[in-house]
Structures are given as structure tokens and as C-alpha cells.
């Protein structure tokens, strides 16, 4: 069981990811919808993995990813996005993301991506 922080500006998607993670035996230590909440939750709980949306209201995923990696160079961040342009994911991996999963996804897709991300 891993401690996971779910970051997405959509409450519906946060609910889906959190429920799928709990159903698959993980512990969701918190949910965040912007950069400020993400950094606060990360420093309070030190999760094993963060799931991070690419397009959020006030900041994009690149900004949040860079801020997380600046606060902890070992932070494991799994990008969760509907974007289908692979070159953008290449850039995110170069920025330190541990992997990505595209929306929509099944519980099995999410578990596979999380397991892979935790092992990275």
C-alpha cells in the first residue's frame, strides 16, 4: 500500500482517481486542486507518489511538477491527462515526471501506471 496525493482541478476526476486508488488498496493522503494546496499537502504528508493533472485552472502541470521537484528532488509524479501529444509527455519526463496515464482510464490502467511509477 502506498501513500498517494491526488492533484486535479476537476472534483469529478479527483473522486474517480481517489476511489480507484482506495479500491486497489492504496491510501489517498489528500487531494489538491492547485499549486498552493499541492505543496502544502506534499510537505505535510510526504506521499510516495503524486498523481498530477496537466491542465489546471491557475497553473499548468509543468509548473506544479517543477515546484514539486524543487521541493523534493526525489518526488515521484505520475502525470494524468487527456492530452494525446506524445512530445508533451517526453518534455514532462525530461522535467522529472515518473510516467503518465491518459484519460479516460480504467481502474486496471491506473493500478498499472501507479505500480510502475512507484517502482521508478
Amino acid at each position: 500500500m502506498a501513500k498517494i496525493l491526488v492533484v486535479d482541478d476537476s472534483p469529478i476526476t479527483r473522486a474517480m482517481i481517489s476511489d480507484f486508488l482506495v479500491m486497489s488498496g492504496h491510501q489517498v493522503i489528500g487531494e489538491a486542486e492547485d499549486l498552493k494546496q499541492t505543496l502544502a499537502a506534499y510537505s505535510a504528508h510526504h506521499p510516495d507518489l503524486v498523481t498530477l493533472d496537466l491542465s489546471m485552472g491557475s497553473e499548468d502541470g509543468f509548473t506544479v511538477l517543477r515546484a514539486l521537484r524543487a521541493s523534493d528532488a526525489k518526488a515521484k509524479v505520475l502525470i494524468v491527462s487527456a492530452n494525446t501529444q506524445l512530445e508533451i509527455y517526453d518534455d514532462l519526463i525530461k522535467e522529472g515526471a515518473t510516467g503518465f496515464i491518459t484519460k479516460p482510464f480504467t481502474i486496471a490502467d491506473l493500478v498499472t501506471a501507479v505500480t510502475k511509477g512507484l517502482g521508478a
Partner: protein
Amino acid sequence: MNLSEDAQKALTAVVAAGAAGCASKLGEVTHHEWSVDGVTVSLDEAGPFAEVLASVAVDHYGSHLSFPGGSFLVLCSGKSGYLITSAFTRDVQDRVESMPKREAHALGEVSNIMLNPMLGHLAKAWGMSLIISSPKSGLASQREHLSRALARYKEGTPLASTFFIKLVSRQLFSECLLLLFLDRSLVEKIAAR
């Protein structure tokens, strides 16, 4: 904006192919089949909106998303919005049932998921890399949604073309109208390629 007939046909073909991907993704998230029931384009800013603006002012769910050089507006009636939301959230219904603005949140996310493959298709065809904004969704009259979508064009950015794409699901008894607005700067860039 003046576009040659060939350039207009090429642009429409790219958008129509993107719309097919959009319908397919919408089918995936709602677990029901969707199809494209027509793609029309207008190069005239004043003309194409008359029909929408003249229609009965029944509130619709509208999701606004933008990208560098253009924007999307997805319009759904209250009934379609409810049916799409219920289908999309079926696995987490207990948790989202009493969520305030459930439909608006769900339809924003559905729009995000279905428009990204379309934007990816357009970006690839145009040799670009594009990231879509987070959706802004709500319930309002079609006139209000359209005014909101066109506001940026009153601030000096000229509108070059508008695509009207109708998406229909006979299985889910639902339909959506997708509008794609392209700025003149982007269309000029595409036409020059």
C-alpha cells in the same frame, strides 16, 4: 477572411477528421456510441451565429476551453447534460451524487477528455504542439455562452473561421453542439504551410 477554396476544403477535412476522434472518445467516456452529424464552417463572423442567437433562450450547459490560436465551446441541453454526466460518473455515483454543480464539473471534464484527441489531431496536421486550457463550465443561455466565447474577438483578435460540429448519440438520447473558433493569426499560419 479570404481563404482559397482548396485551403478551406483542406482545413475542413482536418477538422472533420478531428471531430470523428472526438465522437469516438465521447463514446468511450459515456459507454454509448456517438457519431458526427455534420460539420459546417463559416468564414463570416456575423452570419453563422444568427440562428443560435435567435433560438429560444433555454439554458444550456456550456464548456469553454482555449488553446493558443483558438477556442472551443461545447453546448449541451439540460437533458443531454444530465444523461452524459450520469453515464460518465457511473463508477463514482455515490460520491458525486450530491456534489454541487455536478453536471457542470462533469461536462467540463468530459469536454476536456473528448477535445484533447481532436486538438492532438489538429496540432499534428499543423505541425504544432498545443495544450488546451482547463475547462470553464456552467449553465446559461446559448446567447450568453456565445457572447462569452466571442468576447476575446472584441478585444482586437480577429476571428477567421468558426466550425459547427453536431455530435449525436441515439443510444444515449443525447446531442451536443461543438463550436471551434480559429483566430486569423493561426489560420494564416496554417494556410502559409
